[in-house]
């Protein structure tokens, strides 16, 4: 037994009120719950609430409301006025941060430490950042000098994943509203609650009815939204498989799309790396959010001459990770989001072991109820193994080695994906050379999994197209050609 035993430090769930059942948020008001299905707390499998499955009629109504709001008020509003609403939303998110953090942890299973310190503050930061752009779009360099000012597309359909429910909502809604678009958003079926709480924030901020509409449901709802003829642009974050089907379904239409899909990032550690910080970066890269991160550093590429030292330091560090009750402020790892995801992780790890990888996990006792997977390290992994090529989306690190910078780049790029990469070395020139040669949307140097609204994020290859965040992220939400003009953006 350790000398310094941390007593339970649970966050109170009393700060948030969860309704028994929820409808959709359309045209500024909630509809009556209908065709409901449960959303669970993945940490203990209890039912948190019933949410409604939106059919095509619900999607029609939401798109129509968004169109009315775009044409009637939002598309005509000055940027300065839109900015005020975004600032107001950002401040309300900060004021209600605890509520959002608790609700996100309950619905998603991620530790309260992360929702409190990462998800909610960065979500608010995205609204603050984009609020500032709302009245400065003509100066964002989006259109050639002297050309038309950038204009919104109109109605944007947005489909977001379960791994960062509120944060992905912010990544989607903030730029859309700042540029003068209106929104129909569908949260993931397993994590709809913070989006529904966000609907309340829209009401609280006095946002005009129909500017933001939220419809809940499974993939069928998403499909209805994506295929709806009244939608001008699609923004999707999720699996590559669904991303491809969206690209197919909108082919031949005038719809614009940005897709942020899967990843299999390499975290590359050279022998001159700051080793203790590199170990932290490896841990943060793959165990943050239980590894359910599209840009997770799931492949550790370590220079062969320091492989043993890095792995032994990593294992010692993992011995201090605390896995358990996500509501406990000292939990470092929480629950896997769903049974289906847990099964996927389990079967991929079994496949890795069958292919010859060596499996290791620190000693940790997992709760009996809920969906849990221990932090896992697979050593002796080769490029041909499934665990080196397929996205596991769980707390599982595959360890591979390399000998030279050229080989590191070749192995890192040898994937169907290209979302992110990490480079650990004290040599500045090598960082620049690596960043130049890595085919990934984000390259982190001596850090990993850092997110900031000012920084564009997006992928190469099967990781998708388009960028979110920063000045680049605005591009996807505007057009600079006058032909699609349906409202004034100034």
């Amino acid at each position, binding site marked *: 037994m*350790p*000398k*310094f*035993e941390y007593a339970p430090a649970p966050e109170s769930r009393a700060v948030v009120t969860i309704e028994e059942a929820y409808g959709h948020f359309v045209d500024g008001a909630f509809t009556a719950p209908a065709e409901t299905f449960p959303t669970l707390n993945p940490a203990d499998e209890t039912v948190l609430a019933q949410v409604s499955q939106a059919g095509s009629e619900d999607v029609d109504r939401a798109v129509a409301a968004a169109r009315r709001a775009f044409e009637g008020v939002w598309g005509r509003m000055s940027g300065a006025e839109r900015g005020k609403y975004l600032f107001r939303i950002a401040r309300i998110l900060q004021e209600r941060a605890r509520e959002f953090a608790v609700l996100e942890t309950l619905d998603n299973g991620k530790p309260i430490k992360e929702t409190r310190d990462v998800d909610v503050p960065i979500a608010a930061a995205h609204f603050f950042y984009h609020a500032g752009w709302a009245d400065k779009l003509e100066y964002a360099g989006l259109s050639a000098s002297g050309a038309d000012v950038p204009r919104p597309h109109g109605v944007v359909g947005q489909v977001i994943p379960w791994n960062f429910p509120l944060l992905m909502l912010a990544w989607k809604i903030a730029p859309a509203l700042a540029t003068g678009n209106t929104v129909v958003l569908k949260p993931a079926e397993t994590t709809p609650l913070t989006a529904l709480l966000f609907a309340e924030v829209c009401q609280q901020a006095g946002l005009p009815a129909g500017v933001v509409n939220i419809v809940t449901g499974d993939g069928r709802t998403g499909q209805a939204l994506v295929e709806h003829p009244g939608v001008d642009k699609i923004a999707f974050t999720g699996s590559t498989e669904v991303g491809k089907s969206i690209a197919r379904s909108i082919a031949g239409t005038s719809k614009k799309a940005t897709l942020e899909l899967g990843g299999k990032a390499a975290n590359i550690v050279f022998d*001159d790396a*700051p080793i*203790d*910080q590199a170990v932290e970066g490896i841990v943060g890269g793959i165990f943050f959010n239980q590894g359910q991160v599209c840009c997770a550093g799931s492949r550790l590429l370590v220079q062969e001459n320091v492989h043993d030292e890095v792995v032994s330091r990593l294992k010692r560090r993992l011995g201090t990770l605390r896995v358990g009750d996500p509501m406990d402020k*000292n939990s470092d790892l929480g629950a896997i989001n769903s049974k289906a995801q847990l099964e996927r992780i389990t079967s991929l790890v079994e496949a890795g072991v069958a292919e010859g990888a060596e499996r290791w996990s620190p000693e940790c006792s997992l709760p009996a109820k809920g969906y849990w997977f221990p932090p896992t390290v697979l050593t002796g992994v080769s490029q041909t193994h499934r665990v080196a090529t397929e996205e596991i989306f769980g707390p599982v690190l595959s360890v591979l080695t390399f000998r030279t910078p050229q080989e590191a780049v070749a192995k890192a790029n040898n994937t169907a994906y290209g979302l992110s990469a990490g480079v650990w070395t004290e040599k500045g020139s090598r960082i620049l050379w690596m960043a130049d040669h890595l085919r990934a949307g984000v390259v982190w140097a*001596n850090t990993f999994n850092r997110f900031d609204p000012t920084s564009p994020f997006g992928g190469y290859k099967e990781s998708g197209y388009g960028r979110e965040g920063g000045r680049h992220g605005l591009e996807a939400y505007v057009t600079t050609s006058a032909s699609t003009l349906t409202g004034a953006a100034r």
Partner: protein
Amino acid sequence: MVTVSTTTRTASDVAAQARDVLGVSRLTNRALTSWLHGLPGVDQVGNEARAAGLGTRSIKTTSKAWAIDTAIGMIDLTTLEGSDTVGKVRSLCAKALVPDPLDPSTPRPAAICVYGDMVATAKAALGDSGIHVAAVATAFPSGRASLAVKLADTRDAVEAGADEIDMVIDRGAFLSGDYLTVFDQIAQVKQACGEAHLKVILETGELVTYDNARRASFLAMLAGGDFIKTSTGKVGPAATLPVTLVMLEAVRDWRELTGVQVGVKPAGGIRTTKDAIKYLVMVSEVAGDDWLTPEWFRFGASSLLNDLLLQRQKLTTGAYSGADYVTLD
């Protein structure tokens, strides 16, 4: 658990072990430089982020009570002022003997830390209580004196009965790359300490970078220091969580390398229970439980004790008292 031998080692024993660790036949400044500069670097941003992350641990109820008592037992209760008098030192010793007159179950601090000329006074006041007397020496705090003076300063304190010596390294020599001088001085002071334990003050506020803090830590351990200590308390910044993190990683790695355990003492600027608990969390999660005793971890502090006592009273009685319910020393 490995324990450091308390038998006196001569400076030449220390040099022999150092040659062995470095794998060289002669200990030169070049050998020391290539060894120290071959240590992995410290990334400032990552190091500070890790320290801040550990600082968010939430320590409540029973674990808080344990941490408060453990922290009290690790304090080197310190007065290092030009205005120190016999009366002041005696009253500090009385405080160490009875930290909280309202609660006799309160643990005592580990040591009283004074200037060399106050050792005899402190020793007499503490008697056979088991509370150690630590003396700062070697031209504390600047260290700007000849080696002969530094050794005389050390011997003087040891002869007066000091159980522990807190020496300062020659930061000028360190920053100019003269590692051999720093090494020799520590080794000689260690020899002059005899049975007394040697704490080596790095004065990290003057070394500035974490790379320097790591190198100075390894140099001090190589030269035979029993403890590495952040600061004199006379230079800002004194102890910080990130610099202590670097030093805890150093002692952890040193034990792995040599089998020898070395203690860590952050000193200066640690005033609240909340801060002290953050340090204990860091000790536990970075160096490990073996360091969670006064033998291997100390706080150099003066006002910290009263805040720990206030928090302890609060846990016992359920209500905050106030500054007038702990004694001034």
